[in-house]
């Protein structure tokens, strides 16, 4: 039986089809989830994809957080179900307080799309086990509001407990505190990151295929669990 990975579509989600493609390429079964339905359709894990849910009006992710599907995601995430938030999905996870901190306007106030080098700082989460800690990867980055912020105490705690998962290399693209590109919760099942691993899964369309490992990681974890 293949592992089912749900991919949520909110109004304004854009990278949902890409996330489903990445799941399939990694060998999983991608299950489309609709924001108005509470049902997770027996998904074993959930991806909140990138995009501009609700136009990113008010604050990115602020409106999507209240959709019916999110109450199920929150419930299951607390029970240990793997959840990955990419870009807008990361913003939704922060707005939902599943992950600490918040994402604010890029410090240069422009949208930025570029191939971004990252270091994997924690290869022990549900979504990063197929990496090595310290591994350097390149995946696309594209956002308006990618500046990761939290108060100093929270940032210190994240560092001390190894909850910074990805860090920017070769220059900070958006003013994120401590070059943070992605973080995880205490249990390591919920991961959020600004860059887009789902756009680095095919030689033809991505700068690398480094992003595939996030999806293979979770599939292995779910099979052995």
């Amino acid at each position, binding site marked *: 039986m293949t592992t089912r990975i749900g991919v949520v579509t909110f109004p304004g989600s854009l990278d949902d089809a890409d996330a489903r493609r990445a799941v399939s390429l990694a060998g999983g079964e991608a299950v489309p989830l609709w924001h108005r339905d509470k049902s997770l359709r027996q998904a074993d894990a959930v991806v909140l994809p990138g995009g501009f849910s609700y136009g990113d009006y008010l604050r990115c992710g602020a409106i999507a957080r209240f959709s019916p599907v999110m*109450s199920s995601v*929150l419930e299951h995430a607390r029970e240990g179900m793997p959840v990955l938030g990419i870009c807008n999905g990361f913003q939704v996870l922060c707005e939902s307080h599943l992950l600490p901190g918040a994402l604010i306007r890029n410090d240069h106030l422009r949208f930025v799309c570029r191939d971004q080098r990252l270091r994997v700082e924690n290869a022990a989460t549900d979504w990063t086990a197929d990496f090595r800690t310290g591994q350097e990867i390149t995946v696309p980055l594209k956002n308006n509001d990618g500046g990761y912020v939290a108060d100093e105490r929270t940032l210190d705690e994240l560092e001390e407990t190894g909850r910074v998962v990805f860090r920017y290399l070769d220059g900070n693209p958006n003013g994120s505190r401590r070059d943070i590109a992605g973080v995880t919760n205490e249990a390591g099942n919920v991961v959020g990151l600004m860059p887009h691993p789902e756009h680095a899964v095919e030689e033809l369309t991505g700068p690398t295929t480094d992003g595939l490992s996030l999806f293979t990681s979770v599939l292995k974890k779910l099979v052995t669990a």
Partner: protein
Amino acid sequence: MTRVVVEVMPKPEILDPQGQAVQRALPRLGYQGVLDVRQGKRFELEVDGPPNRETLSRVEEMAETFLANGVIENFTVRVLDAAGAEVLSTDPVAGAAAGAGNSGTEGAR
């Protein structure tokens, strides 16, 4: 019907890239002597009901759960009368506290 204004500002300890960009730009445009700029949001709401405490606390709840993100922002709610004068507003301390209150702890609704 009552007019209510909600002001949402980045917390002082949180980076404010937009305010900083404005401050940096001003001298280039020939405006000297602006020592600090912070940029936030201002909402004007038209709400059913009279300009009373109850309306105020309804909007405070909206601001706390939705219009502001307590992790990074504080808010103030002002209830106006027909002439546009303020009749009631959030106690600034309570408002800030309410804002801070949902940081990191509030979960699903």
